């Protein structure tokens, strides 16, 4: 038994979990073509959730700040990009991939820029006064969430907003009897790119080194003379921008968004962060992919269970590993 677990550890440890889940689902589903479709859907959903959750996890890991208002950035990102896309609908519909791409990236850029600015504002105005006080942090960020939801309602109204998709992301590819929606593949690729970028920054650059050191022991980094607060503002802004980008991607995926979107996603994001272990990017990716896969498999196998699937997954994992799958060293 001991040897078995050691062998498992050598081959990737908890990272094998999604593979196992995929294999079990393959046996249960039976039909390879629907399995592939579901897996692709699960992976792309996981990647989008990863975008939303990674910032939250990093912010917590670095500064011990849990931002309950994080989902506000998700909804703002979704609505800002939806408005930008609607504004450029002429370019989107054009039969020209270059124009499509420009419009799409402008919209995502708008969401990102908004996330950066709003994140800066949020950090400096809302969170800075209540460092090291968990109770007031929870209350204040909750208050900020209420206010931002109301602002969204005031600006965009309560009615659902349709999100136009660029023409080249519409439709799906056919491989034999397997269909893969192009948008899903795109979401997966974008999420993967962000993950690789994050990984590179964290593991290969000096700033990443400082961030990782800060997660592990903040006081020591401060004692060595680095202004960790300034670093934290940066991480907060990037985290918020990523959440906004995730929201923008999700808006395109759902194509019909309501102001309730932020609240719905917040629960999923929290579950992912808890499953993955607070403070680690790898853990968040793992948690997001698990949630995405399980949600899709269960939705196919036992639709009645789908609603509670995330919760059940979280309970199972917490019983097995109380601090999440891959917690940051703390």
């Amino acid at each position, binding site marked *: 038994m001991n040897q078995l677990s050691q062998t498992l550890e050598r081959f990737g440890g908890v990272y094998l979990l999604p593979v196992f889940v995929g294999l079990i689902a393959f046996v249960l589903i039976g039909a390879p073509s629907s399995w592939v479709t579901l897996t692709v859907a699960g992976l792309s959903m996981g990647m989008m959730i990863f975008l939303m959750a990674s910032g939250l996890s990093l912010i917590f890991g670095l500064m011990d700040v*849990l931002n309950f208002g994080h989902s506000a950035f998700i909804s703002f990102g979704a609505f800002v990009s939806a408005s930008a896309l609607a504004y450029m609908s002429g370019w989107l519909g054009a039969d020209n991939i270059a124009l499509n791409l420009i419009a799409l990236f402008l919209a995502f850029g708008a969401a990102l820029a908004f996330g950066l600015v709003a994140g800066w504002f949020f950090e400096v105005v809302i969170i800075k006064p*209540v460092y090291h006080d968990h*109770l007031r942090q929870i209350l*204040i960020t909750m208050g900020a969430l209420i206010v931002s939801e*109301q602002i969204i*309602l005031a600006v965009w109204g309560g009615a659902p907003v349709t999100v136009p998709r660029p023409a080249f992301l519409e439709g799906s590819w056919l491989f034999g009897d397997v269909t893969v929606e192009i948008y899903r593949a795109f979401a997966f690729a974008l999420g993967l790119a962000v993950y690789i970028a994050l990984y590179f920054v964290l593991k290969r650059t000096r700033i990443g080194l400082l961030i990782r050191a800060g997660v592990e022991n903040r006081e020591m980094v401060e004692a060595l003379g680095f202004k960790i607060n300034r670093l934290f503002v940066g991480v907060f802004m990037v985290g918020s921008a990523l959440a906004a980008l995730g929201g923008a991607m999700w808006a395109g995926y759902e194509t019909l968004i309501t102001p309730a979107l932020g609240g719905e996603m917040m629960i999923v994001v929290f579950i992912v962060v808890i499953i993955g272990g607070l403070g680690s990017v790898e853990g968040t990716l793992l948690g997001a992919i698990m949630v995405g896969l399980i949600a899709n498999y269960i939705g196919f196998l036992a639709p009645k269970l789908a*609603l509670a699937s995330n*919760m059940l997954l*979280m309970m199972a994992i917490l019983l097995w590993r109380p601090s999440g799958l891959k917690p940051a060293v703390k």
Partner: protein
Amino acid sequence: MTHSSPRGALFIKSVVLLIGALLLFAPFLFQETRSLEVAARICIFVVLVASYDLLIGYTGIVSFAHTMFFGFGAYGAAIALKQMGPGWDAVLVGVLAGLAVSIVVAIAIGLLSLRVKAIFFAMITLAAASVVLVLASQLSDLTGGEDGITYKAPQVFKTANKLMVDDAGKVARVFGVKLNGKLAAYYFVFTSCLVLFILCLRMVASPLGTVLKAIRENEARAEAIGYRVVAYRTFVFCIAAVAASLAGSIYAIWLKYTGPDTALSFTIMIDILLMVVIGGMGTMYGAVIGAVLLVLAQYYLRDLMGAASDALHGIPLLPELFEPDRWLLWLGIIFILLVYFFPKGIAGTIWDKGARS
């Protein structure tokens, strides 16, 4: 607290007493249906907020599942009254069923997650509450889904029921108020809420309350003195759940309707949070003040804001921000400012004022 100069404390206590007296005579003082609704809602929320204050103010636990327990109680009474018909047996079964579910869930959540950090607990309760909300809207055979359940209250509380008749055989009137079932229902709500509130008040004054405060102030030290922190936390979480569940049942009997919006939605949780923070965490009396202010704001601030919105007509965006439905926006801003500048809320701040002078 109590042995310091009592000026501020006295003021708070007299305000609370005044509110209590107003609520006691509410049917006679404010003779419209809407005011009675407001008064009953205040009673219910006082209990709900006081029991939440046990958690957040006295023990330092942040839970987002308080409405979930409120909903268990409300749905328990509602489903029993719907299935078994209006009667006290149905009320009893429903209340007990709601209580049982609440206690089991509270113990499960408490033992599973009260060991970990406050923040973890907050997230887990949030997730649990959202799952229950989804379940309530999906299991429509039992809960009526989004539409909720309408049912009849026990015979005594029917508006047509005459408590006393005058010589002509009509409903007797005292100071112009009809002595009908509506009045009985209001006093049922008022008395049971009063009892629950006094129990909460008694609890924080007991040795148990002192231990809870010790846990809030310094968990490691409380543990070192020999108190089993997890057991105490789980216990107080259960007590709060029981109080919330009972409040839910009472509200269900009063409203004769239970749905996700009245019993489970996240807005109620936000209301409770606003009330406890505005009133003052860890004061109990703050619960009364916060509940009164916020319920009044809910019912009457909208009218005021509607007027403001009309007055600002023509200016871009401002009318939208002042629209009656946006009242939460302003309360949210007040909430943030309060947490910054007066973390003790109204009751706590005034209480301390007297102590300093």
